[in-house]
């Protein structure tokens, strides 16, 4: 039972490059989320999705894009990478907070931009 799988686990990018962080889940959850975690800071919500074809901005969406074409996958796109986007990125899924379901997290993608 894989749960939430994130790839890659580590990546180094040059300033201005682009990349896509992958997240896939086998929990059949409708809700999916992307967070970033900086050292000494709390998790910050980037984008979230309440189902295929529906996405919405979180607290820190600038510099990122998402899409949700299937229930299982929720990729996060970085365009024109900047040093400020160096962080650990976590994907999470949930059956929905409205139904009192907690969020379940993957093990993260550690991204460095140099």
């Amino acid at each position, binding site marked *: 039972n894989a749960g*939430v799988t994130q790839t890659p686990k580590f990546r180094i990018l040059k300033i201005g490059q682009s990349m896509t962080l992958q997240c896939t889940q086998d929990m059949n959850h409708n809700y999916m989320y992307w967070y970033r975690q900086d050292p000494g800071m*709390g998790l910050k919500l980037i984008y979230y999705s309440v189902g295929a074809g529906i996405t919405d901005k979180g607290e820190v969406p600038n510099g990122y894009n998402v899409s949700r074409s299937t229930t299982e996958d929720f990729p996060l796109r970085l365009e024109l990478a900047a040093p400020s986007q160096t962080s650990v990125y976590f994907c999470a899924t949930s059956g929905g907070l*409205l139904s009192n379901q907690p969020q379940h997290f993957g093990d993260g993608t550690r991204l460095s931009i140099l």
Partner: protein
Amino acid sequence: EDQVTQSPEALRLQEGESSSLNCSYTVSGLRGLFWYRQDPGKGPEFLFTLYSAGEEKEKERLKATLTKKESFLHITAPKPEDSATYLCAVRPPKGGSEKLVFGKGTKLTVNP
């Protein structure tokens, strides 16, 4: 702005030495408080959800409690394997119902 403050930032205990971690919040009309455990290099792992003042939840050596303005995570007779960062998150009443606000965490170290 909704605020979640966790204290202390770091806590070092001897094995068997019980203590408590604090999570205070300024959200009015809380619609849920969540505790997570995070090991180095891993994603947060769900522990508890609390919804109303007076509520308590237990799991092994951990017990979470909730008042109107704060939550405590009590650790009884901790073992080295309890060493981790403990995160608190709240679900505020305003804004998107799916959003959680996280604290910065308490890093717990339990020495043998």
